[in-house]
């Protein structure tokens, strides 16, 4: 595998990003999609990929968002949005649901982020502002428990500051937990010796290296 540069196009749209994440989830996986943007990944999962969705409020086999008369206040996802139940679903209580997560049984979770550090620290729950009201929910449990933590975010803030950083300045959600980082400008694999770049979008590897303060490593074919 080598780093692939897609410099002859723009950065990924949010929809393209969700589609890319969806395509990267191995067939047969048990997956938890975080609140917000990660939830949209569900729309792009291949039905043939046999993905089972977990929602940490106590369900496996979650189906699409419920519409109209199918909306049931007793059947919601972690974002408190009414959802549906697929054949083969199961319900369980909160301690069992988080045991499933903490015990390493969920193959992939997809989370949003404020910042990701070069060695995979995740900051996604607290802005750190003095008057902010902290609310953690299941973020730390997901970051710590899932076998693979995929993060999807824009690579830069609206002010143009990188969100892939040498060390997070926002309060941490989990240490060294991000295994794959999906952004509009590229896909990154954090690690102790630097960040591997799997592919770029709308920018070259060299330009990316200029704009980020973290050591970027190109993937080179092995063997």
């Amino acid at each position, binding site marked *: 595998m080598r780093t692939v540069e897609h410099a002859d196009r723009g950065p990924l749209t949010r929809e393209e990003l969700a589609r890319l994440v969806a395509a990267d989830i191995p067939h047969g996986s048990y997956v938890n999609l975080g609140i917000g943007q990660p939830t949209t990944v569900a729309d792009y999962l291949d039905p043939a990929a046999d993905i089972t969705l977990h*929602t*940490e*409020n*106590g*369900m496996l086999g979650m189906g699409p968002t419920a519409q109209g008369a199918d909306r*049931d*206040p*007793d*059947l*919601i*996802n972690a974002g*408190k949005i009414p959802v549906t*139940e697929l054949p083969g679903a199961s*319900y*369980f*209580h*909160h*301690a069992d*649901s*988080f*045991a499933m*997560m*903490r015990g390493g049984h969920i193959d992939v979770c997809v989370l949003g982020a404020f910042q990701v550090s070069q060695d995979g620290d995740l900051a996604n729950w*607290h802005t750190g502002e003095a*008057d902010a*009201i*902290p*609310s*953690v*929910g*299941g*973020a*730390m*449990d997901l970051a*710590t*428990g899932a076998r693979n933590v995929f993060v999807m975010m824009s690579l830069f803030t609206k002010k143009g500051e990188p969100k892939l950083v040498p060390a997070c300045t926002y*309060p*941490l*959600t*989990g*240490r060294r937990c991000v295994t794959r980082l999906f952004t509009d400008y590229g896909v990154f694999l954090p690690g102790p010796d630097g960040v591997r770049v799997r592919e770029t979008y709308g920018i070259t590897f060299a330009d990316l290296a200029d704009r980020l303060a973290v050591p970027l490593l190109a993937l080179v074919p092995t063997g």
Partner: protein
Amino acid sequence: MRPVVFRDADEAVADIPDGATILVGGFGTAGQPQELIDALRRHGARDLTIVSNNAGNGDTGLAALLAAGQVRRIVCSFPRQTDSWVFDRLYRAGEIELELVPQGTLAERIRAAGAGIGAFYCPTGVGTMLAEGKEVRTINGRDYVLEYPLHGDFALIKALHADVAGNLVYRKTARNFGPVMATAAACTIVQVASVGDLGTIDPEEVVTPGIYVDRVVPIEPAEPGVAA
């Protein structure tokens, strides 16, 4: 003891004293024991510690209890929501204490209380603000923080159906915290859509065995077929 069936939510909560720690079921409004919380508000007990996933939505239920000034402290994972303005105002005014706990740790601490576990090493939150001041131990190369049980004097939960032995079944994701909270309180009070005779729940399908249930209050859902 077999649970006592109350006709009235107000009677079921009438002996909750000031200063009690109360586990309150629900994830958002799913599984929230709205009528029991309303009764607790009317009852007027103050200086309460509430353990619940959220800190109230809108102006009803838990939010109304907070607005009435009855809650001194809340232990929860996700207080801040789009409609948590009551909590937000009290928190910013310094009128309510918050202990923020990761959601899975919250559930596991409640389970530990019900299961007689003295404390447990949990990987969640290691290296974060929420682990500050907590004991950390490395076990097989991984770091864990030591977490303690969360007991309740009372639990207020909602289930779908009870039999007269107190066995409970729940409905879909409204199950959430109910089964673990039922195990962890000295007195568990359950509102249900219906109460039936022994035999109305298959022994294989019981989710909460009656041993954990002290009081049952049948409350018909507002819309038949849909839990309120």
